[in-house]
């Protein structure tokens, strides 16, 4: 491109202004790269599934909870081999960025049901026997430097203790690994019995959902229907789905995260659009005599318009590329911190390409109006001023 030096040096006519604009564009695309990648990790993390497992959840809202008394009824349903419950604990370990799922569970049944979780039988015994026992995924324990026997304090938020304290302390009695490293939901597990006794009495007996192993995976649909029929007219109706479906429903709620992120990004890009458009319009106004000179020299209207348009595309493209590259680096640096709860976070080719696409589009949108003005510019009139 012969005119590149001309376009390039125009960008540096007002260094400060160009750098401020460039900086804003970079910031916007840095945000874009990060948010899209994180949203992507949310969407990806939910493909884990056990085919023969069903998840029984409250029919209307994930946060409602279900009475533990449902368990016996579920176990009695034809086709149910085994069932247990899980309760979303929330809570914070040391600081809120240390995010990992925590569940009070029934140790023995839980590890029976989640047969892909591998634990030393002696440690499982200890988990069952010791009231305040907890087990953690081995990599999580490694990440936080936990040893067997360590006391692990968790600050409760959803569940407070009956004694008025919000500090829960667990003793790490074992670690487990996940076969084939399949699940991204490996969680910090502790004894339900202790949890239930210790929590505020009014909240006792409430769990988040039930996990069911069926005798025949091909019958999963019928068994689900039978379970839900049991509770249809109770005050706690249920919705039963395969783990995969449940995860998909979870993803649908998580999908709102995608929506939120996209809303944030739209707002950011809209601001950037106005800002950059303003810069470009100003840059054009200052340059009218020069564009007229170019036309005098024989640059056609189209060519002058193209110069103006390319200048804007170059600025936005450059900002976009730098911003996305920076978000790539940032993810590499932050990745290990976040991966504990989001699974693999990486810049996908799709994120990169759509980022670059948006940047170029931004350049075109922003440059279009100045380019058209440049095209219409009448040499004689412009030179008279």
């Amino acid at each position, binding site marked *: 491109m012969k005119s590149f030096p001309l376009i390039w040096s125009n960008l*540096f006519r007002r260094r400060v202004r160009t750098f401020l604009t460039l900086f804003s564009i970079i910031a916007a695309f840095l945000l874009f790269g990060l948010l899209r990648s994180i949203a992507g990790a949310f969407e990806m993390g939910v493909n884990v599934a056990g085919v023969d497992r069903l998840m029984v959840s409250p029919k209307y809202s994930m946060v409602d909870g279900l009475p533990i008394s449902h368990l016996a009824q579920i176990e009695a349903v034809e086709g149910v081999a085994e069932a247990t419950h899980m309760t979303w604990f929330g809570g914070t370990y040391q600081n809120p960025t240390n995010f990992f799922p925590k569940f009070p569970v029934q140790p023995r049944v839980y590890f029976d049901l989640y047969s892909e979780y591998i634990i030393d039988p002696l440690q499982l015994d200890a988990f069952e026997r010791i009231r305040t026992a907890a087990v953690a995924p081995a990599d999580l324990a490694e990440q936080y430097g936990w040893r067997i026997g360590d006391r692990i304090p968790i600050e409760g938020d959803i569940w407070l203790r009956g004694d008025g304290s919000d500090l829960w302390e667990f003793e790490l009695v074992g670690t487990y690994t996940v076969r084939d490293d399949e699940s991204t939901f490996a969680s910090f597990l502790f004894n339900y019995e202790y949890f239930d006794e210790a929590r505020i009495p009014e909240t006792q007996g409430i769990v988040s959902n039930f996990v069911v192993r069926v005798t025949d995976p091909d019958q999963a649909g019928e068994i689900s229907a039978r379970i839900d029929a049991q509770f249809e007219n109770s005050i706690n109706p249920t919705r039963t789905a395969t783990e995969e479906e449940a995860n998909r429903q979870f993803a649908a709620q998580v999908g709102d995260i995608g929506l939120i992120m996209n809303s944030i990004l739209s707002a950011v890009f809209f601001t950037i659009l106005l800002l950059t458009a303003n810069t470009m319009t100003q840059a054009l106004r200052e340059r009218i005599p020069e564009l007229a000179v170019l036309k005098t020299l*024989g640059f056609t209207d189209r060519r002058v318009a193209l110069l103006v348009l390319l200048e804007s595309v170059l600025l936005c493209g450059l900002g976009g590329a730098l911003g996305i590259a920076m978000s790539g680096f940032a993810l590499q640096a932050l990745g290990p911190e976040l991966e504990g709860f989001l699974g693999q976070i990486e810049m996908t080719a799709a994120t990169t390409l759509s980022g670059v696409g948006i940047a170029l589009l931004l350049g075109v949108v922003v440059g279009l109006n100045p380019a058209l003005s440049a095209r219409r510019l009448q040499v*004689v009139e412009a*030179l008279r001023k």
Partner: protein
Amino acid sequence: MSIVELQQVSRHFTKGRQTVEVLNGIDLNIEEGDFLALMGPSGSGKTTLLNLIGGLDQPTSGSVEVAGRQLVGLSSRKLAQWRSRNIGFIFQFYNLLPILSARRNVELPLLLTRLGGRQRRRNADVALTIVGLADRASHKPGELSGGQQQRVAIARAIVADPRILVCDEPTGDLDRETADEILDLLELLNREHGKTIIMVTHDPKAASHARHTLYLDKGNLVREAA
């Protein structure tokens, strides 16, 4: 042989309900190789006439034939292409691009040719050498004096080797001595390089460098011996 041939050229400007008749039925022939000075009071239409000859503007009526081409009715695109090959423009206030070095400024018209980068640079340097500024090639306009900037502008006007140079008060912003240098340079381009030059000026001394002088008054041309 005439390189510029105007017949019954009129140029009126309409502003609202008012019509200003700036040029009225001008006939003008300029021979190839001439150096013509165009004088006249301010507002008499000198620039307007120059713009018509340079293919920047269209007449209200009449015929404008320059360098063998009838310019009346050409599209803006065709005119632009024609200008890039046939006309070099020199303005009172130089009109260089402040962000570009002298060499890049001179190179601008060559961006419209098929020449490669190295050849463009070489031609730009030749043009700068002709105007005596080879050693300032990498300076920006802001780092040059008025006279030097006008030389760069002249180099830019000649770099694509046009047959005609159109100058609108090229010394209007310069002191006497610098003006004379610029005028000498134009004379050189006329004599040694065969450029046809049409120069608008207020300054009788500047006009004395030309071969002929024409006066424009109230929309009409008056020829006078140089």
